[in-house]
């Protein structure tokens, strides 16, 4: 009998953080432009120590303004999607659940497309123009969250089966609308849209967006984590969880909103990156067990690692061109999922 202790949890997180750090260093090294890690490290140290305001080495500007923000985006998106996926799998008591199953990503995509169509007709101040698409996506995601919530209620509270049905139907409907719009929209727009829909981390944002993403991630994840033990009990069934002391109604609502918010955040800035929210929780469960007190933080770190690796591949394999990161996660994710599935059944 080895119950979970804080010490063991911290060790596991430390291990994953170390792996993440290593992956980030590798990601910084590889890309369309060559980087000397020594020079980079030296300059970063100078910046941190306040001796200079920016990286001065060759291509330092490129690293600082393009590659590093992109890596940070990958970390936040990967972590958000994984935490959301873990939460939905617990909430819906369904191992096939992923962050997109309840339609949030379809809503976000629709919002982005509508924003794209509207953009030429709006006169926006320059600093806001770059925010239009993600903002539209996020607002649409929020609307979808609310709509699915109301669809998913039964007798006034969330019922997991009804929620799943409501979400799937909403996703289908929104996808149909997206298809319709894409077939009537001008074709240069469609090209941009296609990359966005596949999940793509190459978008650049103003600094504030990254801060907002990080803040949103930490707040929402903290909220979900405070219900980690409740989620453990929820896995046995709503009734049983209640008999064991879980305020099922409150936990379901809180986790639903927080996890959907995380999904909306991630999808608004990167499109729908495939498979991360589905597979990373399963992998972490396989390695660390299904106790959510461990699973949630390890899934977050694991998701960050996965997306940074996938994005590094996406931007180096056909350099100087790129492929969408969603393509990489799908190519790797699908066989991995089949493998995990077979192991489970064996």
């Amino acid at each position, binding site marked *: *009998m080895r*119950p*979970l*202790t*804080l010490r063991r*949890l911290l060790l596991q997180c430390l291990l994953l953080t170390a792996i993440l750090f290593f992956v980030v260093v590798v990601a910084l090294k590889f890309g369309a432009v060559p980087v000397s890690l020594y020079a980079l490290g030296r300059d970063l140290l100078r910046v941190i120590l306040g001796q200079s305001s920016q990286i001065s080495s060759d291509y330092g500007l490129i690293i600082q303004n393009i590659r590093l923000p992109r890596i940070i985006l990958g970390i936040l998106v990967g972590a958000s999607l994984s935490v959301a996926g873990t939460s939905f799998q617990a909430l819906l*008591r369904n*191992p096939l659940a992923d962050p997109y199953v309840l339609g949030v990503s379809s809503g976000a995509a629709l919002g982005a497309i509508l924003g794209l169509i509207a953009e030429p007709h709006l006169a926006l101040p320059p600093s806001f123009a770059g925010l239009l698409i993600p903002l539209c996506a996020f607002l649409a995601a929020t609307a979808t969250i609310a709509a699915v919530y109301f669809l998913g209620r039964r007798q006034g509270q969330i019922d997991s089966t009804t929620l799943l049905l409501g979400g799937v139907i909403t996703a289908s409907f929104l996808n149909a609308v997206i298809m319709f719009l894409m077939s009537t929209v001008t074709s240069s727009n469609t090209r941009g849209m296609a990359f966005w829909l596949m999940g793509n981390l190459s978008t650049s944002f103003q600094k504030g967006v990254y801060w907002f993403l990080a803040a949103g991630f930490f707040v929402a994840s903290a909220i979900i*984590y*405070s*219900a*980690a*033990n*409740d989620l*453990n*009990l929820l*896995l*046995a*069934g709503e*009734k*049983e969880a*209640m*008999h*064991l*002391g*879980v*305020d*099922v109604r409150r936990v379901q609502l809180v986790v639903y909103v927080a996890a959907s918010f995380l999904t909306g955040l991630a999808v608004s800035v990167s499109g729908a990156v495939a498979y991360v929210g589905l597979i990373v929780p399963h992998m972490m*469960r396989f390695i660390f067990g*299904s*106790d959510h*007190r461990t699973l949630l933080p390890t899934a977050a770190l694991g998701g960050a690692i996965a997306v940074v690796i996938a994005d590094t591949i996406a931007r180096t394999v056909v350099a100087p061109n790129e492929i969408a990161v969603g393509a990489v996660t799908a190519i790797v994710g699908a066989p991995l999922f089949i493998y995990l599935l077979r192991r489970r059944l064996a």
Partner: protein
Amino acid sequence: MSSPAFARNPSEISRLSNDPRLGVEQVSYAYSANPAQAPLFTLEATSFNARPGEIVAILGPNASGKSTLLQIIAGALQPLSGRVLLNGFVVHSLSPRTRAQRIAMVQQESRLLFPARAWEFVLQGRHAHGRSLRFESADDVLIAKNALAQVGAAALSDRWMDQISGGEKQRVILARALAQQPLLLLLDEPTLHLDIAAQVGLLDALRRLAAENRYTVAIVTHELNLAAEYADQVVLMQRGRCLRVGPPASIYQRELLEQVFQTPLSVEFASNGRPRVTVLSGT
């Protein structure tokens, strides 16, 4: 409540002579899927009391409202009228967490989505006693260990839940309920999937635990003989109505039971004063 037909030793009598811990007062319930339609199922006003250390059997055929009554006692359903009191507190008005500290429910099968070990499962019973997010303390671990030992499942501690037999699983589920350190222990048809030996084993354990730890136990069952053998009190239900409340000896009358269970029976009394029912075949 006592009857000279029962052979009781003095210590048993003294343990039972406390004030009622559980008070079910005129509890009724109606359920309708559609507000416009008439209610599908009703539980008519039912009342009974139970003391610490007492085992109550809620007995009746299928669809007699037994499980509904149990859910109301557990606080999971709000009664249409009446109330359930546990040591003076109205059960339904307590928060789920407080309720879980006092009432433990043992249901039949526990569907686990992801595999868990028996000790993990039992530790879940400690959830209600700590802060929402915390790691189990040494005390918690001890209590869980004890709970497993008390049901004779200490050897199952490291086994995976999906790899043990039905009877073993039932014991682990009971251990989890015990880990909650409840005042009231509720069981819904616990013997349904068990063989005879397991059934007897479970009920023997329940009787012992109720006596040792002063639990109040309420079991929903349709097993006539088990109820007769182990219950101190029987609540006889039929189609949502509580027909009678009392010790087995006073409830187990042939005509009454035949009417409730719709089958010819014969009732005898064993040497320990407990009734024994035999089902008669043929017309």
